[in-house]
Structures are given as structure tokens and as C-alpha cells.
């Protein structure tokens, strides 16, 4: 198999002293970001991107990806010890993780979380390794109409399967696309949507938007509730960890099922948050002792953690092979790739072989590094959370604004980040999904270019998107998903009408 040779080459790239150091730094920074409320994985990647401008792309992506793994681990730590999810995707871990910690089984809960997370992550990486080659060669057949069709499908997925109100998803995605088209138009060269403001000519950076939406917005939401970190003390003893490792194989069904759910949700843009909830729900439904759920069942920790991490890792596959990120964090990373001058998509596998396989190999190594690091540093990071919020909160704010400054040294960007913060808070309160907006801002230009190029190729006819079976299938699937909320509510109404009658008769 070609993949094995490529992967071995990747390990040669990833296993240098410099890259191993970057992994350790990235993972530690990631855990910190994951532990701190208001800072999450998308935000952490955003903070680092301006600092990677001068780095080699392989080194840069290894740093960013390692940070992502670290953030995922950090998020679960606070869920279990403090009942406060550090990341939206670790909300489901609080359900059983925190009860376990309160019963004095904190070490057990943490070990279960970290080990099943590592299992999920490695499962995801293996899937990427196996599918990366075929997916890329499949995507080689793509031209502009197919690309637009896939972008369309990605957003239709959000509307149809996202779980939020379809109208709110439309608003979020539409806003993202609109913001992406601010500034110089790549095809005609005209300055669009600048409203006479010179600051808008360079466009609205997605980095600034992410800092506002995820950083400031999340912080406002956190400040709204009076936060108190009354956590459970944790010291991870090696003996307890070994005991958990010995017990883990008996949960193999949960592990494998959750990892599969995670992979599916990561490759389709469902994202880690949806994956962890779905897999928690499945675990509860199929558990032999459902009554223990919510009171500290190990399955309730294993299921969301494995799914969360396998979704996080497998979200990298569509980003690399198709240029469509499967999660908000992957979207920010893809934005980074474009800033470094790379073009995400199948050509990456031809032009940038050592970049792609170096990254994939680093995912194996970095996840192992992350588990070891997180197990040893839990007490340290738990101590950081005991620093009073009156000190931590202003510092997070300063970090956010300073990193907004580093994007392009523009004062306007700081006000923009503040505005995005207010929007992020409002949207969070009203359950508008934010991920579609970030995705739209990153791929907006590419989607518009793909649309306009397919129109140029096919003489301005929308039939371009149904000109061959591949493109037509993707587009039609997209429309089905887009109308899915409508279809499913219709079906529910019909079945209700059928069921309701005999019920009423029995009353």
C-alpha cells in the first residue's frame, strides 16, 4: 500500500527534536486554553496563527494541531473536576464525569476520559490514514461545479442535521458569507461592501471574528453566571491509572461505537459537540444498567470523550482532502493553511506530500504525547483555575485583544473583535449556531470563486451543477438536507395524526 510508505515518510518529518518540542509546547498551551473558560480550541488556534507566519508550514500545522489535541483534553479536565466544561464539546462529559469525581473517583474518571479520548483520537487518525489517499484521488475528479456542490452540501448539513433552528443556521451562514465578500473582489477587482470605510478594504479577517465570537462572547456568557471553581482535588496516581487501563478493554463496545459516531460526525460537518452528545445518548440507550447514568457511570465518560476526540481528529480529513473543514477549529486551521500559501484540497497530496503526511504522522505522536502530559499536569492546571477570576478574566481579555492586534496591526480590528464579542454573546444566548458563520468566512471566497468559475465554464447556466452524475448527486443530496427540517416535521405531523386517533379512542 502506498499509504504505509507515505506514512513512514511522515514519521521521519514528525519525529525530529524540533517538532517533538513543538508538540509538547502546543499540547501544554492547548491544555491551558482548554482549561480556561472563555478560551477554546478555535480561539487557541487563532491566537497562535499570527505567530506562525514566519514558520515552515509543516512545523506550523504540527504546533496548531497539537494545540487542538491539548485543548480537547483540557476541556474534559474541567468538566470532571469542576463541573464546568472548558469546551462546548465536553459538556456531555460533565453528566457522569463530575458525579464520579464527587464520589472520590476523580482519578478513575480522569483516566477513563483521557484514555478513551486517546483511543478515539487514534481511531480517527487510523481512519484518516486509510481514507486520505482514496479521498484525495476521488477529489482529483473535482472541478469548480463539484467543489461548489460540496460546499453547498456542507452548509446544507448544518441546516438539516445541525439541531438548531434552520432559520438561525441560515442567518449565521449567510452572515459569514457576506462578511467574507467584504473588500476586494478577487475576480472583478471591485471593492465590495466597504460603505466608504477605508478600514474595510482589506476585508474582515476571520481571525478577528473568531477572537470576538468565541473569545469575548464566551467570556461575557461566563461572567453572566457567577463562576466559582469549587472543584474536586485531583492527584493522579500511577497505580489508579494502571487499574483503569486494565478495566478499559471491557468497555470496547462503547469505545468502538463512540469512535465510529465521532468519525462520522467529524467527516460530515456535524462537529465534535454533536458527536459527544449523540454518542452519550447511544451509550445510555444501549447500556445494561441505564439507571447508573448521570450518577457516575464509566460509560457516560467514555462515550462522549471517545466521540469528541475521534470527531476532532477526523475533521482534518475533509479539510485536507477536499478543502472543507469539519469543525470550527478545523476551519480556523484551514484559514491558516491559506495564509501560509497552501491550497487545501487534493492537490495538497501531490504538491505537499511531506506536509500532509507529516501532519498525519504527528497526529499519532502528538496524541500519545498529550495523554502522558495531561495525566501528569492535571494538578498543575487545576491549580491555575483556583486563581481568582478578577485576575484571570482581564488577562484573558488582554490576550484576546492583543492577538486581534497581531493579525494586521490595525486598531479597527480591535473594535471589530469587540463587536463580534457582543454578537457572539447574543447568538449564544439565542442558540444561533456560530460554527457555520466561521466556516462561511473561511471558505466564502473559495465558494464564490467556484460558483462563478462554473458559471464561466458553462456559459452562465445553473445546469452546470447537474451536468454530470457526481455533481448532480451531491447537489440533490444538498437540497434534500436543506429541506430536511421541513420534511421531517411534515412526516412527524402525519404520523402524529395517525397515532393520535386510536389513543384518544382508548381514553
Amino acid at each position, binding site marked *: 500500500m502506498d499509504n504505509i510508505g507515505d506514512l513512514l515518510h511522515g514519521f521521519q518529518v514528525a519525529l525530529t527534536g524540533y517538532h517533538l518540542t513543538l508538540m509538547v509546547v502546543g499540547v501544554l498551551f492547548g491544555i491551558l486554553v482548554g482549561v480556561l473558560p472563555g478560551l477554546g480550541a478555535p480561539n487557541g488556534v487563532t491566537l497562535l496563527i499570527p505567530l506562525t507566519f514566519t514558520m515552515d508550514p509543516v512545523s506550523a500545522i504540527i504546533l496548531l494541531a497539537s494545540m487542538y489535541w491539548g485543548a480537547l483534553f483540557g476541556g474534559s479536565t474541567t468538566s470532571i473536576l469542576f463541573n464546568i466544561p472548558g469546551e462546548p464539546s465536553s459538556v456531555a462529559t460533565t453528566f457522569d464525569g463530575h458525579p464520579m469525581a464527587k464520589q472520590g473517583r476523580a482519578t478513575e474518571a480522569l483516566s477513563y476520559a483521557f484514555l478513551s479520548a486517546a483511543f478515539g483520537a487514534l481511531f480517527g487518525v487510523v481512519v484518516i490514514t486509510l481514507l486520505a489517499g482514496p479521498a484525495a484521488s476521488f477529489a482529483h475528479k473535482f472541478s469548480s461545479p463539484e467543489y461548489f456542490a460540496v460546499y453547498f452540501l456542507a452548509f446544507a448539513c448544518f441546516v438539516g442535521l445541525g439541531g438548531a433552528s434552520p432559520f438561525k443556521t441560515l442567518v449565521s451562514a449567510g452572515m459569514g458569507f457576506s462578511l467574507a465578500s467584504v473588500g476586494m473582489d478577487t475576480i472583478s477587482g471591485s471593492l465590495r461592501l466597504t460603505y466608504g470605510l477605508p478600514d474595510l478594504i482589506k476585508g474582515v479577517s476571520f481571525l478577528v471574528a473568531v477572537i470576538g465570537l468565541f473569545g469575548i462572547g464566551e467570556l*461575557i456568557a461566563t461572567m453572566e453566571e457567577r463562576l466559582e471553581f469549587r472543584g474536586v482535588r485531583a492527584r493522579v496516581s500511577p497505580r489508579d491509572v494502571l487499574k483503569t487501563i486494565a478495566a478499559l478493554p471491557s468497555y470496547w463496545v462503547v469505545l468502538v461505537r463512540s469512535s465510529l459516531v465521532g468519525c462520522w460526525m467529524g467527516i460530515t460537518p456535524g462537529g465534535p459537540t454533536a458527536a459527544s452528545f449523540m454518542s452519550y445518548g447511544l451509550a445510555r440507550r444501549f447500556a445494561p444498567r441505564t439507571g447508573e447514568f448521570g450518577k457516575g457511570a464509566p460509560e457516560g465518560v467514555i462515550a462522549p470523550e471517545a466521540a469528541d476526540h475521534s470527531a476532532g481528529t477526523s475533521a482534518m480529513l475533509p479539510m485536507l482532502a477536499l478543502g472543507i473543514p469539519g469543525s470550527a477549529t478545523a476551519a480556523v486551521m484551514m484559514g491558516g493553511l491559506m495564509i501560509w500559501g497552501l491550497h487545501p484540497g487534493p492537490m495538497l497530496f501531490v504538491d505537499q506530500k511531506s506536509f500532509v503526511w507529516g501532519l498525519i504522522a504527528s497526529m499519532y505522536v502528538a496524541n500519545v504525547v498529550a495523554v502522558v502530559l495531561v495525566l501528569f499536569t492535571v494538578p498543575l492546571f487545576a491549580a491555575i483555575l483556583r486563581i481568582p477570576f478578577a485576575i484571570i478574566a482581564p488577562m484573558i481579555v488582554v490576550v484576546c485583544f*492583543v492577538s486581534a*492586534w497581531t493579525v494586521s496591526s490595525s486598531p479597527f480590528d480591535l473594535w471589530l473583535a469587540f463587536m463580534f464579542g457582543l454578537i457572539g454573546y447574543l447568538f449564544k444566548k439565542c442558540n444561533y449556531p456560530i460554527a457555520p458563520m466561521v466556516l462561511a468566512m473561511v471558505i466564502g471566497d473559495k465558494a464564490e470563486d467556484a460558483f462563478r468559475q462554473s458559471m464561466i465554464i458553462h456559459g452562465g447556466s445553473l445546469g452546470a451543477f447537474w451536468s454530470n452524475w457526481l455533481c448532480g448527486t451531491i447537489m440533490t443530496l444538498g437540497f434534500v438536507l436543506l429541506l430536511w427540517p421541513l420534511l421531517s416535521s411534515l412526516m412527524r405531523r402525519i404520523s402524529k395524526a395517525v397515532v393520535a386517533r386510536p389513543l384518544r379512542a382508548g381514553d
Partner: protein
Amino acid sequence: MEQQETSASRTLVTRRALELVAALFAFAFGTTIILGALEYHVGWGDRGPEPGYFPFWMGLIVVVGSIGALFEALLSRRHADAPVAINADQARRIVTFLLPMVGFLALALVFKLGLYVAMVAYVLTVMLWQGRYRLPAALAVSLGTAAAFYFMFELWLHVPLMKGPIEAWFGLH
């Protein structure tokens, strides 16, 4: 639940009102985009869509979505479960969090004192006002923060942050 309308937990913004605010904001945003797109041709040229086409339709999608969300907010009975979006206590906490932040931005950008001076003032204010720390402790932490940022960004990463006249007196550029 017992009715306990103390001044602290008084409802300030209802769920429905906040949903309406969000939908109206989205509506205004979409309208602005459409107006901006209309500065260019939004139709179909001989080489396919004109520059204004894409933003125009995206603005329209936002407007349609916002109208849908508006109706959802008006008609939905789901808000009955959680009728309160923000109570007075929460609003006070948000404002005490946002005010110093706006001060930080104003000090740095409007009064052009730069990010370092503004972050010292900001961390100092929050620690004294909300954390009720003593002045020496607050001074140490805020100056330490600025020093840490200086070493990290100016010296280590070579990314200069915005500076103002006060740094110039010290000969730092």
C-alpha cells in the same frame, strides 16, 4: 417554583425580547449587506454573475432567515419553560465586565496611549474594583502583565504591539 421577586433576580430581558433583538439585528445586518451589494450590478452578466450577485443573495438569505427567526420568536411557546433570558443580577455582572473592557479599548485606541498602558490600567482597575485587592498587589500584577507581554511579543516574537507617548518617554519604541 416559589415566586421570589427580589430586586436581585428581577427579570430584565425576557427570552422572547432577546430573541426579537437577535432577529432584528440579523434583519438589519442583511438589509445593510443588500444595500451594499446594490452599489454593483447584482444581475447576470455575459460571463455569469456580476460582482454584486453573491453578496446580494447572501444578504437576502440573512433577511429571510431573520424573518423566520422573528416569527419563531413571536409564535413559539417553547419560551414558556425558560421565560427569563437576563435578570438584573446577571445584567449588572455583564456591565461591570464590559465597562472596563470598553475603557481599555478607548484608552488604547481613542486616547492613543497604546496597548501596554491600557492593559496596566485595565488589569489594575478590575483587580481593585471587582477583586477588592490592595493597591500594591494589584500594581504588581498589572505591571507584571505588561512586562510579560513586552518580553513575549517585542523581544521574543518580534511582533511590536501598539505603543503611545508614555513608552516614548521611556525611550521604548
